[in-house]
């Protein structure tokens, strides 16, 4: 398969993830859509790494995985903290910081 297919698939997945972040309002689902976007970036990194014939892109994909794990841990901690303070789990209701 051409590398084009992989790159176009990755941009399609990225666009779907971005659309999900705009449409959905539950913070858990927004975190899931962030995972979609990070994984689309990973797919592009690995496809380019295969295209060049160099393993360095795969190292960066693994670093992206580590960053995604950190983001998940902090985000889920925030959601648990919100839930335990009886705040609504809805990003449209949590708008105190809006100017």
């Amino acid at each position: 398969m051409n590398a084009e297919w992989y790159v176009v698939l990755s941009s399609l997945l990225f666009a779907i993830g971005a659309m999900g972040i705009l449409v959905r309002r539950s913070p858990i689902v927004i975190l899931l859509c962030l995972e979609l976007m990070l994984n689309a970036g990973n797919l592009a990194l690995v496809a380019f790494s295969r295209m060049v014939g160099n393993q360095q892109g795969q190292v960066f994909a693994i670093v992206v995985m580590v960053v995604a794990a950190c983001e998940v841990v902090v985000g889920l901690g925030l959601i648990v903290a919100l839930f335990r303070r009886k705040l609504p789990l809805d990003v449209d209701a949590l708008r105190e910081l809006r100017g």
Partner: protein
Amino acid sequence: MEAVLFFAAALGALGGALGVVALRNPFYGVLALIVHLFSLAVLFLLLESAFVAAAQVVVYAGAVMVLYAFVVAYVGGETEPVFDPIPGQRFLAPLLGAALFIELSIAVLGSSLTALSTDGPNVGPGFGDPAGIGKLLLERFLLPFEASSILLLLAAVGAVVLAGRKGEGGTSDEHSAPKARSEGVPTSP
């Protein structure tokens, strides 16, 4: 054979991604994301990066998704209402997504990368195996490796601080604190 595998995995990845966006229950969203991650692991195998595929399955589809499933079960997977606070958002967002996809595709396909329309160079059987990745991680990319380990430590500490604290600010939560403490401290994968 390779094309068949590619299209099957691409369909799985696209279906999983659409399921995450479209399914109302967050628990089903987590399950759809697991399908998506497995399909991506197949794509990584097709791109001859075995170690990244294994890490994807073990770390992502294993550890991270279990964390998600626990939190969804704890918080309660309530379906969100259809009520739309910003008028027209549900129509504008797919338009913007389509525009983003077209723009990204033009940016990539319109670039002068000649190797994009090839299969890539012939690589040996050792391409993307744990030995090569580990050598790169511990020699050339030692600094990013150490920085990511510090980042993991900081994230674990941050999660403990965020989710493990009780009775500070906002409404108190003494009655649910002991049960929540055991759940609210996720370990880093």
